[in-house]
């Protein structure tokens, strides 16, 4: 489909553990990071709600409702506190 786009996804901390990988390239019809997260949540046992995370799009903190474009780089970042 022409609406499909290729997105580079990176996972950190507990998301990396739950996804079992640090990054991947995803072909998706997702319009927003929230759609993308929901799609990935069906594939991996993510225990965190988007509200508990931040999303960065192309090295900048973004909104969950932002439009995604082909070739975007998306990073899902949970807060961490270990020391």
């Amino acid at each position: 489909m022409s609406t499909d786009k290729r997105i580079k996804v990176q996972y950190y901390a507990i998301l990396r553990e739950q996804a079992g990988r640090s990054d991947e390239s995803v072909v998706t019809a997702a319009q927003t990071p929230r759609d993308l997260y929901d799609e990935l949540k069906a594939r991996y046992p993510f225990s965190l709600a988007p509200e508990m995370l931040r999303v960065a799009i192309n090295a900048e903190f973004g909104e969950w409702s932002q439009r995604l474009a082909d070739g975007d780089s998306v990073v899902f970042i949970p807060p961490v506190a270990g020391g």
Partner: protein
Amino acid sequence: MGAFSFTRQRIDASGLRQQLSDPAAGGYASFEGWVRNHNEGLAVRHLEYEAFEPLAIKEGERIVAEAITRFGIEHAACVHRIGDLGIGEMAVWVGVSARHRAEAFQACRYIIDEVKHRVPIWKKEHYENGDSGWVNCERCASPAVHQEHAAGHGHHSHEHSTHAPASHGHRFTGADAAALASTHGRVAAPVTDYSRQMALKEVGAAGQAKLRASRVLVIGCGGLGVPVISYLAGAGIGRLGLVDSDCLEPSNLHRQTMYALADIGKLKAELAADRVRALNPDVDVRAHVLRLNALNAPELIAQYDLVIDCTDNFATKFLLNDYCVQLGKPVVFASVYQYEGQLQIVRAGSACLRCVWPEATRDGIVGNCSEAGVLGPVPGIFGGLQAFEAMKLVLDLPGQLKDELLILDLLTLSTSRVRTMRSGDCPGHAIGRATAAQTAAVAQANAASRNAHDPATELSFDTLDQAQESGFDIIDIREPKELVEMPAPGGFARNIPMARLLYGEPRFAPKGKTLLLCASGRRSLAAAQELRDRGVVDVYSLRGGLKALQANTAT
């Protein structure tokens, strides 16, 4: 003759000394390096020195000029022999005249150390057995009073320690009587030597003075704190405050390398302060044995210029953020998780922690209750980064992390730098929120000081039957996979995973009194507090979680 020169003739120390005399000088110190009759077990017959003179002279003169500026001495000079030298001959001479002995010794030491490290001079040793070998003098650079000699890197030295002046080797001479007395003692008191960092043109004497004038507060003396404290103490930070209320535990040692097994059970802030005193007596170190809270934070932070967050919990991180934003003190934050970590610097005008995490994150909500685990070098690396960023701030070096969150995954060595540019509601908004959070934190701290436990949110039961009989709706907030591994006893609990409980649609609506449970009681407490903050009443957490229930059953 320039301040640094080479000669093929015998060095005439007394003639050179005359050239440094000055009515303004109250002391003179010199160093002589002699050709020794053995090296690494081989008997040495004679030596040859060779230098690339034009370059070597320039570098040597630069070193002498640096010493004059840095230590404020009157005069200094250095002469190095080249060509063929016999045993006992003087290979190098350094002389310094100064107002006082301290700077005379420091400058003299600085010049010889730097000459040996930086000036391109090669030495060919001719051994008794007929062999010979070139030795780059950079490798023979390590006066034995340095730690590095003890570590075994000083084998090529043709000088010996001032600790053992009777043996073959160099000697100090001093016109200053007190200086003479101190060098002739068997044990000279070791002095801090910042020459390696001062040799950087971005540091120098001015930078060292900045480090000395700075006051840094380190919150947490654990995995992150240990490297931060070690490096800042070594660098000669003027005042170092160390905050920690915990005692050392055996499980700390794999990553908290400043401590020893024999220290188990002792207060970490005090252990760390002792270590700093041993490492660098120049540092005014202050141990603060306390847990940072809204009542003690403002006064403590006010005594320092820069704060380093080496804590392991969100509550303290947000508390620090709020007060430091208000007081205008920069904070270097770091957090680690298993094989990765995050680094962020909050300072005047930059995004703060609440700009990045507007949903004030509670301890226990992210990650599971069981310890996530960590490899020792992970906090070591992040603590090292924190110490480095702190020094960049103090020294005003370029490339400071600003308006960015640095995420580093050490397994893949991948780095993400995410800009923390924010919309119009920050930082003003964040500060407003931070102030409100502070007010709440003060109230909480006051309440906590009246009553060590918060009986309202946590409840203890011996069995879930008791809770059910008391009319509680019991909700197991663990993930489905956890339920399979360890089901909750009794079959009374319904399962709503935490993410769905807190953020699912439709919103969670309580059926009367609610008891939340998880594996250890940490997540359930965080979730109960979160729901209460949103106005849900009569929601409680099972203290100690399923582990506490199992312990009860076992006894």
